[in-house]
């Protein structure tokens, strides 16, 4: 490795670490406990954890099959689909929120249908928060799983089928167990992404205290009213993020097979 790489590498590291240091320097640690235990803060924290956990579960239930289909199907259009899945990853979240609004909003075609047939209104509910978070977090899970599937190839699955295992047995007894390490990192990434989701949420679900105002939205709200409180909540988000990484072990985050 040429030593010159250390220079840009240090700058990059500083870019990641220094803002957090800046935040710490600005914060008033004596008021921290009272600020983060206010009703509004706790409510936002609870809402964030519950919705992010729910979206992660949905990401797993829908994302695992999607990743397997994308990695294993030999259909012609599958390469196009692979690119489509990346859309929420490259789309500005606000645009995603708007798109969701015009699909599921009162005037959107699916939202209209839901409203007329079932009397359900999706936007500006906790459900909308979960949908917005799932929308932005799903690609993280699918991409990490699909990469793992394509790297490991389908040789184990082929052997399993020559041993008489039907496709469903192969999926259950070979594909999924081999996918677990990658699933671990995928779950952490998508949970973290769901937890930090802001743009799509505020556009599609609004910022209703106790219903759709998650922690990031609360931080944004407080930043205009009470900067100390915003900084304290930001620290709280950082703590949660560090906890997530620590729990998931760096190995899982790097997608290394255990």
């Amino acid at each position, binding site marked *: 490795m040429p030593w010159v790489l250390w220079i840009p590498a240090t700058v990059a590291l500083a870019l990641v670490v220094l803002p957090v240091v800046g935040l710490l320097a600005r914060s008033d640690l004596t008021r921290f406990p009272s600020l983060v235990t206010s009703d509004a803060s706790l409510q936002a924290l609870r809402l964030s954890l519950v919705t992010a956990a729910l979206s992660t579960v949905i990401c797993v239930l829908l994302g695992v099959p999607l990743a397997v289909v994308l990695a294993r199907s030999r259909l012609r259009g599958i390469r196009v689909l692979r690119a489509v899945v990346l859309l929420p990853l490259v789309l500005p979240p606000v645009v995603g929120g708007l798109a969701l609004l015009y699909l599921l909003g009162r005037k959107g075609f699916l939202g209209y249908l839901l409203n007329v047939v079932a009397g359900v209104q999706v936007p500006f509910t906790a459900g909308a928060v979960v949908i917005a978070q799932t929308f932005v977090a799903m690609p993280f899970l699918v991409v990490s799983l699909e990469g793992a599937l394509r790297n490991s190839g389908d*040789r*184990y699955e*082929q*052997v*399993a*089928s*020559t*041993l*008489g*295992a*039907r*496709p469903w*047995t*192969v999926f259950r*007894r*070979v594909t999924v*167990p*081999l996918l*677990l390490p990658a699933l671990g990192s995928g779950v952490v990434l998508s949970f973290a992404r769901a937890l930090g989701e802001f743009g799509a949420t505020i556009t599609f679900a609004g910022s209703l205290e106790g219903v759709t105002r998650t922690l990031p939205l609360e931080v944004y709200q407080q930043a205009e009213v009470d900067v100390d409180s915003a900084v304290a909540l930001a620290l709280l988000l950082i703590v949660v993020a560090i906890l997530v990484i620590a729990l998931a072990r760096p190995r899982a985050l790097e997608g290394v097979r255990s």
Partner: protein
Amino acid sequence: MSLDAEIELVRGSFELTVEFHVPAGSVLAILGPNGSGKSSILGSLSGLLSPRRARIVLAGTVLQDDSVDLPAHARAIGLLSQDPLLFPHLSALENVGFAPRSRGASRRRAREIARDWLAEVDALELADRKPSQLSGGQAQRVAVARALAGEPDLLLLDEPFAALDVDSAPAIRGLLRRVLRAQRERATVLVTHDPLDALALADHVLVLANGQVVEYGPTREVLSTPRTAFTARIAGLNLITGFAAEDGLRTSGGYLVAGIPADDVVHGEPAVAVFEPSAVAIYSQGYPGSPRNTADAVVGSLEPHGPVIRVRASSEGWANGLTADLTPAAVAELGLEPGSPITLSIKATSVAVHPAVSAGPSPTTTLNGDTSRHG
């Protein structure tokens, strides 16, 4: 449980056409260099690969024809490849029990079957280990048990020793020899590039080159009396093409190679002279004895071949491409290196002359002729 197969495959510009029959309880070896289409045949038999056209009948059941195409899991096959491919998340015992489980055995029954098969391959003590805790040879042993535990009607072996080190390959070869001989029901197809595997395990051998069958017959017969330079090279034998003469073979250049003609050789008809590399002696200072079967050449290449060094000669005449096996000491003593002038001498009593279908001067022309012996 005999197997009948006709397979036609296309992969890009590569085309393969084969047809063969494997009787119950026997082993067919498919020999050929890399890229000759060997593994594609196994892929088609197992159902993992879709040939352009195929008719595969196993034990009276049509696995594939124009209207039927059974998926791999419904084909009653077992596959063993060069990589053991044991499921990394399962113990050795669970790996071996996988096929019985998949075919409907209870958990307990599958464990019993797996134990029996692990005992059969002398690997019972490895039962609780994970694949990452096994050596290459141990893993392949477990993989043999796993492939057999489903009691397949057709066993497919894809270069099963290619990835093993020199110590474990003979042990696994011996193990397979034992388990294959132990039953008289199953048909087995072995794909290999090593004639030793075929000699050790197979009743019949099919030699494949560029997607075509160039020879097909009983193993010993095909490998000891190859009719094409191609098979001879695979079998590690020397082969010279020409026409049968009174006491040997006359090359297209007119040289008489002295040898012992087989009973079915007809004077003046196309024939081949075959002899082992160990029958070729090399001298650096001219040959001291009688001049029969000698030729001047230069050393083309030197390569290790087991305990000996195989010298490939290069010359303008009939001796071009002949190989001789020398001990490393002899190579050192003669001071051989590529380009060294040498004289080759072949003992006439070691040269067997067999009839050939065509007497082409080069392997390519020999290959184009229809040289298959059966079917």
